[in-house]
């Protein structure tokens, strides 16, 4: 019989035990009667022989090996009963815990979904990313290096341990079926879906012969694009679409939720048939390579093989591949800078949970003291101390688990709103779900909390001086318990200080950052990406004419005052970084200072409202054939030329050609990296160069990156529709997309700070509230236990003010010790914030002072009520209570 079996049949076991012992007694008595004893005496002798039947039964039960579980169940039932009998206590303790565990669970669910969950493909641990590797590449600045398409093809062909698939992130104008619209385009190698292990939802993947120059033009639709454009109709397979003027036949649809891009409204096309010149050379590196380890191959083998292929290519193509190698890394989801924010929030929310635990602990302690007599009585009746401790811990574990259950339900409800409020879009948001990991975490958090808040009260289970406890009654508070109470309050206050100071620091930072000047006039500016008609992209003359036409049409839209082209917009994602030098003797790439470079047209300064400091801005004189002109900001001017006059100087910018460029003017610095991020940004120099001097060979590529910006006299969002219509062009397929106002961009650049402040504000208010409840509860309890003492003091002549002062000073002592302990931790926490959140400064004494004042005031308020109650004690009735 297995132990659970025995547990299940407990009742039957008990009956059998009883029968067995009765049989023994009867038999023994019968034997004794046979030897001549009278029946009564025989029974007595038999019973003496066996010993107390109850003790024997107890020992037999112990021998069964299910004792611990039976005890646990007993304790469990007892715990539920006591909770039911004290609904007030249960409600306060449970809601405190549920809040703490619920908030922590929400944060963990997000951390789990975004950071911990593996990629949503089969056998994700066998997936690797293949990067390019060169000495001069700054990974911290630019991220990992991609591969050149010919290099990718060589790796794909030569690798035995890896099945390599390539991806090319691109975009294009989808003009048929439906309205022309800009969509993301993903160039894919034919094996992409088989490498990922992703079967298609409909249709088939690309065939190898389609992934070659001249292959049949086929496309695969992302699920949501299929829904939008084809209404989810399976007849889409075999239908055609027009992307960038080229007609493709749809052969497949991916499953819903497959995300290789931010969105799944994408069109997949075979890379191999893309004729773009930059895919034919080994110089540019546009291919993102994903690979799966072949069966039996190891990661190390793959690394070595890639290194070998790299050396071969370096020998074969020294011009482009000298010093270039390849490296594999485990494929991880790209979550950007969300990581630090998430861990920060999980840390903050754990502090709230700790405070909640301290609160419940002090509640439990008060209850444990009032139950001291009960426990002492049980100890006197023979209960072992360990047994009593176990019982107390079971009770707190039950409390923790119930709180956890409520907390998980709260978390399940609160999760979606939380993600909704996340600034921008949370990467992998679709992965954020309550799963077994989350439940396990919540279970562990609940049990750990139960242990944390239950241990101190449980260890008070009586061991010695039973009779004293029994005689003393429940009213005296032993010195140790008062000290323990104070410890809880001190801990709560210390933790609250940490959260309050963190919130205060963030608040100060946000105030400071919001008052910063972005360096341009963000009012009434609209920026939008723009794609020319695919037909015009064939020839440079047409491209220049088309852009000129677009700007003229934009200017003529009612409400628009001026219009400009621009490639990288301040405070929007995307930038172009170029190395430069002030003499012809240009050092190697990784030694050059770096500047942001922006392509603009002459009206840019007017549209953005950037001040011209010296010289002139770019104008119509700066065109092909004339000297290359650039305008720099005061930061670059300072870096490159110090106090010297910058206007008229020359700069050597290798990426703009071998000849130097002429600085014709200096303008004000713009906070390109956002209001918060710009001060700490690594690259702050700024340089503007005219679109009219972009060489013909680059025009097509540049045109794909262009945006237009307009300054309006009215609300900028009100001109969007007329702007959209007016730039459509003759073929009706020129589109604007990603429309934003500069004000939106500026505000979004502080979104992270604002969001963190909001959450820290909520957490610290919770902490403050819990700490106040804690102070109130402890003082109310301690003073009520001191009623006779206070009565005596008053009978001896103490006034009610003296009593008030006595209680308040007791609470002030706890508060100040708590603040003292908390300050040290708070300082460290503020340093962490400074490191992780752009624009935060940790050493700000006024923040500390204000937050501590708030805390002390709240603490005193919470202690005032019990103090006043104590001061109104009627000495006579108080003494009579004794």
């Amino acid at each position, binding site marked *: 019989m297995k132990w659970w079996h025995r547990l299940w049949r407990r009742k039957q076991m008990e009956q*059998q035990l009883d029968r067995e012992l009765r*049989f*023994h007694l009867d*038999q023994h008595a019968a034997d004794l009667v046979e030897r001549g004893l009278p029946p009564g005496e025989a029974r007595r002798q038999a019973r003496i022989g066996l010993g107390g039947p109850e003790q024997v039964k107890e020992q037999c039960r112990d*021998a069964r*090996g299910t004792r611990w579980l039976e005890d646990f169940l007993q304790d469990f039932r007892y715990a539920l009963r006591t909770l039911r009998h004290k609904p007030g206590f249960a409600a306060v303790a449970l809601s405190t815990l549920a809040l703490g565990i619920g908030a922590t669970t929400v944060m963990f669910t997000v951390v789990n979904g975004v950071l911990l969950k593996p990629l949503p493909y089969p056998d994700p641990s066998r997936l690797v990313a293949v990067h390019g590797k060169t000495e001069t590449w700054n990974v911290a600045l630019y991220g990992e290096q991609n591969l050149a398409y010919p290099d990718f093809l060589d790796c794909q062909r030569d690798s035995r341990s890896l099945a390599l698939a390539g991806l090319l992130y691109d975009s294009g104008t989808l003009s048929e079926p439906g309205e022309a619209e800009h969509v993301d385009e993903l160039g894919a190698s034919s094996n992409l879906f088989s490498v990922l292990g992703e079967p298609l939802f409909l249709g088939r993947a690309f065939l190898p012969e389609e992934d070659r120059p001249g292959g049949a033009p086929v496309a695969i639709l992302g699920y949501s694009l299929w829904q939008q454009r084809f209404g989810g109709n399976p007849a889409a397979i075999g239908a055609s679409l027009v992307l960038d003027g080229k007609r493709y036949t749809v052969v497949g649809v991916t499953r819903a939720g497959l995300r290789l891009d931010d969105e799944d409204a994408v069109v997949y096309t075979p890379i191999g048939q893309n004729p773009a010149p930059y895919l034919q050379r080994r110089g540019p590196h546009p291919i993102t390579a994903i690979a799966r380890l072949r069966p039996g191959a190891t990661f190390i083998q793959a690394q070595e093989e890639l290194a070998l292929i790299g050396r071969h290519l370096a020998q074969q193509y020294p011009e482009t591949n000298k010093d270039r190698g390849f490296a594999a890394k485990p494929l991880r989801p790209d979550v950007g800078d969300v990581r630090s924010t998430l861990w920060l929030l999980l840390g903050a929310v754990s502090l709230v949970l700790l405070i909640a635990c301290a609160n419940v602990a002090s509640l439990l302690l008060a209850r444990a003291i009032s139950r001291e007599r009960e426990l002492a009585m049980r100890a006197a009746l023979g209960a072992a101390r360990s047994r009593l401790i176990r019982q107390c811990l079971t009770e707190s574990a039950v409390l923790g688990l119930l709180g956890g259950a409520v907390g998980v339900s709260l978390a399940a409800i609160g999760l979606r709103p939380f993600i909704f409020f996340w600034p921008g879009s949370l990467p992998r948001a679709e992965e954020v779900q309550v799963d077994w990991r989350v439940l396990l975490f919540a279970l562990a958090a609940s049990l750990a909390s139960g242990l944390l808040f239950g241990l101190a009260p449980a260890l008070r289970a009586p061991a010695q001086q039973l009779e004293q406890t029994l005689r003393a009654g429940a009213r005296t508070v032993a010195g140790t318990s008062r000290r323990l109470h104070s410890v809880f309050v001190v801990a709560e206050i210390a933790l609250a200080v940490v959260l309050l100071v963190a919130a205060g620091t963030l608040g100060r930072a946000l105030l400071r950052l919001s008052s910063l000047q972005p360096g341009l006039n963000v009012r009434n500016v609209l920026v939008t990406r723009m794609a020319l008609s695919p037909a015009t992209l064939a020839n440079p003359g047409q491209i220049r004419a088309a852009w000129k036409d677009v700007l003229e049409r934009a200017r003529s839209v009612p409400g628009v005052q001026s219009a400009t082209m621009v490639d990288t917009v301040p405070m929007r994602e995307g930038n172009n970084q170029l190395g430069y030098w002030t003499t012809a003797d240009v050092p190697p790439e990784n030694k050059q200072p770096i500047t942001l470079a922006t392509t603009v047209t002459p009206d840019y300064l007017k549209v953005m409202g950037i001040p011209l400091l010296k010289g002139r801005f770019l104008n119509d004189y700066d065109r092909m054939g004339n000297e290359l002109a650039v305008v720099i900001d005061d930061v670059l001017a300072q870096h490159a030329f110090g106090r010297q006059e910058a206007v008229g100087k020359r700069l050597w910018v290798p990426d703009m050609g071998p000849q130097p460029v002429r600085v014709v003017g200096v303008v004000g610095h713009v906070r390109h990296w956002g209001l918060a991020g710009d001060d700490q940004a690594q690259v702050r120099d700024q340089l503007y160069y005219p679109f009219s001097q972009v060489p013909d060979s680059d025009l097509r590529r540049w045109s794909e990156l262009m945006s237009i910006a307009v300054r309006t006299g009215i609300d900028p969002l009100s001109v969007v529709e007329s702007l959209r219509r007016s730039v459509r062009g003759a073929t009706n397929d020129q589109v604007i997309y990603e429309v934003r106002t500069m004000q939106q961009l500026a505000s979004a650049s502080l979104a992270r700070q604002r969001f963190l402040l909001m959450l820290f504000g909520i957490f610290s208010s919770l902490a403050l509230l819990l700490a106040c409840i804690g102070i109130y509860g402890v003082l109310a309890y301690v003073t009520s236990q001191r009623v006779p003492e206070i009565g005596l003091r008053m009978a001896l002549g103490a006034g009610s003010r003296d009593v008030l002062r006595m209680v308040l000073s007791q609470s002030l002592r706890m508060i100040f010790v708590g603040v003292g302990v908390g300050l040290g931790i708070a300082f460290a926490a503020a340093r962490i914030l400074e490191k992780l959140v752009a624009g935060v400064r940790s050493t700000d004494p006024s923040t500390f002072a204000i937050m501590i004042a708030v805390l002390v005031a709240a603490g005193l308020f919470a202690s005032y009520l019990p103090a006043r109650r104590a001061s109104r004690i009627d000495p006579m009735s108080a003494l009579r209570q004794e």
Partner: protein
Amino acid sequence: MTSKSDLPQGTLDLLILKVIGLGPVHGYAIAQRLQQVSRDVVQVPQGSLYPALHRLENRGLLAADWQETETGREAKFYRLTRKGRAQLETEAASWQRLTQAVGLILGMAEGGVE
């Protein structure tokens, strides 16, 4: 009655296994037999007999079922499992070795005086 000695620790299990090894038997009979066979030298505390039986059953050394006795009453009869028999053999052997060794040592002490 001669002076009774308490059982050395751990021997109760061995004795119980031995008695049950002779054939299925109920608790009271085990107590009786232990007392008779040891000629009342060994004091078997009846109170600890049952916990020991339950413990051995729990460890899978004994199995039990309800059978009728000669007097027609239902009693819980214990018998050895295969595991119990093996245990009995190893424990009995080690007991033999131990007592022999102790006997040798005691004998040697006397010889040393001669």
